């Protein structure tokens, strides 16, 4: 496939979107990533990355319903597209391939 430039952070966000399935929106992505990585992530970075991923067609979005939470603001949910999934597969294949090439030497 055509190469997709996906940074490390971008890949992590994309993975999180995929993992959260139907529940991926700004704050949930943020919390999930912070929990998994064990370090602080800034929301603005996530927003920027989501926009880029959407521009590249790796994710798509839809608005949720209005609730009394969030000052009456709708959530914007993100879902991974088939193209996005393909990109993840490609990355995964690339990495595992490389990983398996590591000689079986003891690093002890």
């Amino acid at each position, binding site marked *: 496939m055509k190469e997709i430039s996906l940074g490390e952070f971008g890949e992590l966000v994309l993975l999180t979107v995929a993992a959260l399935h139907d529940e991926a929106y700004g704050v949930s992505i943020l919390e999930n990533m912070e929990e998994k990585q064990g370090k602080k992530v*800034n929301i*603005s970075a996530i927003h920027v990355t989501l926009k880029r991923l959407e521009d590249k067609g790796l994710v798509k979005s839809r608005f949720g319903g209005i609730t009394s939470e969030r000052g009456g603001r709708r959530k914007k949910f993100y879902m991974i597209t088939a193209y996005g999934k393909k990109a993840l597969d490609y990355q995964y294949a690339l990495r595992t391939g490389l990983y398996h090439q590591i000689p079986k030497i003891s690093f002890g």
Partner: protein
Amino acid sequence: MKKAPPPERALKFLRWFCRDDYLEEIEGNLIEIFEDQYAASPHRAGWKFTWNVMLHFRPVFIKSYKTQWSLNSSNSDMLKNYLLIGWRNMLKNKLVSAVNLAGLSMGFTAAIFIALYVTGELNFDRYHTAADRIYRITKTVQTDQGERHMARAAARIAPAAVENLPAVQQAVRIAVFGRLTAGYGTFRDYEPMIAVDSNFFQVFDCRFIAGDPEIALDEPHSVVLTERLAEKYFGDEPPLGKILFTNWFEATVTGVIGDFPSNSHLDPPMLFSLSTMNTISGEFKNYMENDWASSRFSTYLLLEEEARPETVATQINDLSRKHLPADHQQVSYSLQPLKDIHFYSGDLESDYNAHKGQMAYVYIFSAIGFLILFIAFINYINLSTAGGMKRLKEIGLRKTIGAGRNQLVFQFMGESMVMVILTLVLAMAMIYLLMPAFNTLSGKNLQPDLTGGTALLIILVTGLLSAVLAGGYPAFYLSRLKPSLILKNTSGLHGKNPAGQLLLVVQFSIAIVMIAATIVINRQMNFIRNKDLGYNRNQLVTVDINSQPMRQQYEGVKASFLGIPGVEKVTTSTRVPGEWKNLHSATVIHENSPAELHYVAADEDYLPTYEITLLEGRNFSHAAADSLKILINQEAVKVLGLKDPVGQFLEISGFMREELEKPVLVEVIGVIRDLHFQSVREKIMPLMVSYYLNPFYPIDYYTLRIDTRDLPETLAAIRGVTQQFDPENPLEYHFLDEKFEELYSNDTKRSDLFGLAAILGIFIACIGLFGLTKIMVEKSVKEIGIRKVLGAGVLNITWLISGKFLRLIGIAFLIGTPVAWWVTRGWISGFAYHTPVTLDMLLMAGFIVLVISILTVSIQTIHAAKANPVQSLRDE
């Protein structure tokens, strides 16, 4: 549960910059985070929210310029069109635009410079933190001749005020003791000896570079140097703790302060501790402890916040009266605010004041600044009105397709705003470039601090105002014209614009007044320089006597000076003309009527060396018997009412208004011509010259008449003689004519500044005229062509165009000349001796302006008149 609202301002900001399609999502997420954190710590949540908003302020999320601003697209298109048309117009008339730009920016530059100068004058001494609470004590003494005001007080006043008056927080005394020789290593120079109380730095703001202001002057034999002096004496060595040699005592350097700014009336190069004087002179110590009567100490009080200076002054007078003997002169003290010292010390004697200012000059220079700016504005108004005439078609078209008058006004105002901003930028650049030159010229030390808040604000407001003022008239004038008339195209040469003509007249009247004033000022300065002073001041060198050996070995010193080949004559005296120290005075009584005479003592070579004419009687002879003989000048003869003065006896009853115990009888042996001892501003005073061998005042100067053939060698020989008699102190000499010139240095500076302003004024006016002619010529190219075809000559056509302007300048001349006469007479009467303001000076001013304007106008018109009519007529 009611949700806490996130910080309002951050939210507003987010909504302002964020793209609409992203806003809901981002805002929602941020609010959710905020609400999550709010429970834990409301304060932190708020901060975090604001911080997150800030992090979103990046290009991805910011509304694009287009979506933000072009909502009202017709307006912005119009704006763009205005700018474009304005810009094209500027480019199309490059010359006129350049003239406009140059004139306005020069006007602004001059005005800003003058504003800097004037604000500097008005802010004199105000930089001290406690400036509002600092007062100087002044003393008024009643004498037979009237009141005398002094900027000094007695020694005990300051300590007594602090001890007894709760309203007085601090009191500091400054004592000036003439000069001393200071040195370090082998370097020696003369410095003023100024000693102050140790709390000087608690009253006045000084920037300490080294040392501790609290204790610097606590000990006797301490000295605080200014940066300049520290470098002069110690170079790169750190001066703190070093010993400064002086010919009176040695002092330890305990501090280095920044130089006093140019807007401080105090300007001591170094400050000694006043207690030093107590330790080196028991007499002085006694004086410091008991003196209630003298006028020796400049005394400054720092009052409490709410203190009333009048009350404090009354209390000080009470204190003083308690300690003064009842029969003592009538003395009263009052307080002068620190801020008044610069401008309102004119009648104060013994005023330790580095720069006395005159309010009159502040007014004069402000007026000049306004006038120059005004001339520049008129240029702009006339040029854009005339230039606008060329755009009548544009205006007509705009009006026809529905432009309202407001829109047109807005368009022209906008154009002038752009113009003004451009000129301001240019002017600021010029100010930065010219600042050093201006400082040299004005003798000020202004800083080009235009970026400071208030300065920038003032400049911007002035700019805005001028854009409205200068752009206003053309805008309203042009927008008022009827489209039907405009499109019919009226003739260029006969279009009437009476206001424009009036402005031109005003402009050139101002220019004529300024030129006339410059001519008169220059005449007066020349008059002063060349006035017969009653003696020949050229080729005279004065040598200051700074030590006892030089004074006591008078005979030897004089003989050695005479032995130098280049020295023709040598004399000694207590004072020399052009003197910057106080002249002595003596009270002389003749037939019971006292008169105040200037007093100089000199030897028998005084008259020949100075080439002073003896009118009657004889000069001193080389004999001790002459010690009670005197010469007087013509003015003294008049003042004393003497008939047949030679051989008369006069009684000297006192010196410097202090009575002698016993009057001294002296005999008049000769009468000399009146001579100007001081600036020609002053009237010639009655003068007595007594023989140098007298008990009153010691000699202070040698004066040498030299021939200037081999000056360096002669000076080296003079130095050799002084070193031989007094190896301790360096030679200090002056050329008398230069010293005399210094008396007028302020006048010279002012006349230079004024001349510059006048030249600038006429220049700006003329480039305006130049631009105006250019526009006029361009507009009437066709008319000129037709006239030529019909047989008009070059002269005829030149006159047709030039005549219009020259008539106006003629009117300006008629208005300007009387005004110039009135203005310059006022200034010149400040000099006791002055050249009359004659008609020829004024006529010359008018003539100069006329010639310059004829030249300016004819460059364009002759060119136009000589052009081949085919050129202008073929394309119709």
